[in-house]
């Protein structure tokens, strides 16, 4: 195995590991917000590491730039979904807040 192949294997293993952590987190963590952390984040890292590994392994100029573009688009759009879903969860029920130890948002003065 060449050095590059070893690097690709390590990178994709890293990606797969984080996808797995993300899946485990969604099952194990106690409430909406913490599951949001597991589902939204670990998978961002996982997907980008796997895309990067694919781009390096099948290296071809434009394919590689396309994977970089995909990662950039992923990073631009994923956090918006996460934020929107977390806010919806916060707004729709006090029951879901029982795991919060500290909450500044309870005294929010309303929309600006």
């Amino acid at each position: 195995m060449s050095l590059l192949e070893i690097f690709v294997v390590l990178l994709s293993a890293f990606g797969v590991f984080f996808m797995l952590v993300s899946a485990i987190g969604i099952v194990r963590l106690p409430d909406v917000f913490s599951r949001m952390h597991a589902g939204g984040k670990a998978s961002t890292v996982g997907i980008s590491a796997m895309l990067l590994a694919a781009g390096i392994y099948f290296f071809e100029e434009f394919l590689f730039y396309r994977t970089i573009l995909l990662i950039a688009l992923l990073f631009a759009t994923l956090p918006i979904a996460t934020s929107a879903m977390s806010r919806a969860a916060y707004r729709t029920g006090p029951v879901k807040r029982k795991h919060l130890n500290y909450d500044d948002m309870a005294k929010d003065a309303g929309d600006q």
Partner: protein
Amino acid sequence: MHMRNIFLMNLILAISWSALQESIDIATLTTGFVLGFLVLSVIYRGYAGTILGIFGYVLFMVWSIVVASVQVAGYVLSPDPKLDQGIVEIPLDVRSDLETAILASSITLTPGTISIHVGRNPEGQRVLYVHNLVMGDPSEVRRKIKHDFERRILRVTRGGVIA
């Protein structure tokens, strides 16, 4: 001149370079961009700082995402996850929509923190509400976010307008 116009000029220089070289590929365009960048950063003070600042911010984001992912993975996989969740308000110094959006997205991208809402606290100050997976001391969280993210964003955007 506004930073955006200088950047556009840099792109035009890159395209001109590529036209004069009679080849359009990424390598030629990149060479043209770098040469144009060197020329423009001599002419306009602050341009080099802004572009390098953006580049540095991207590198900083990648680094902090990787570090924080490992931390979150640790919490998820530990036999008895000790979470200490909480929502902290971060008073904002950023003003424009673009700055706020970049700040909120960066915070959400970094594992362990999600920005939930931009609102006003009872004192009427503009604040960002950030949910933390493992919180600790609220003022420490505030200090860290303001120092790590907001300061870097402001350095790029406020250094932006030059003569």
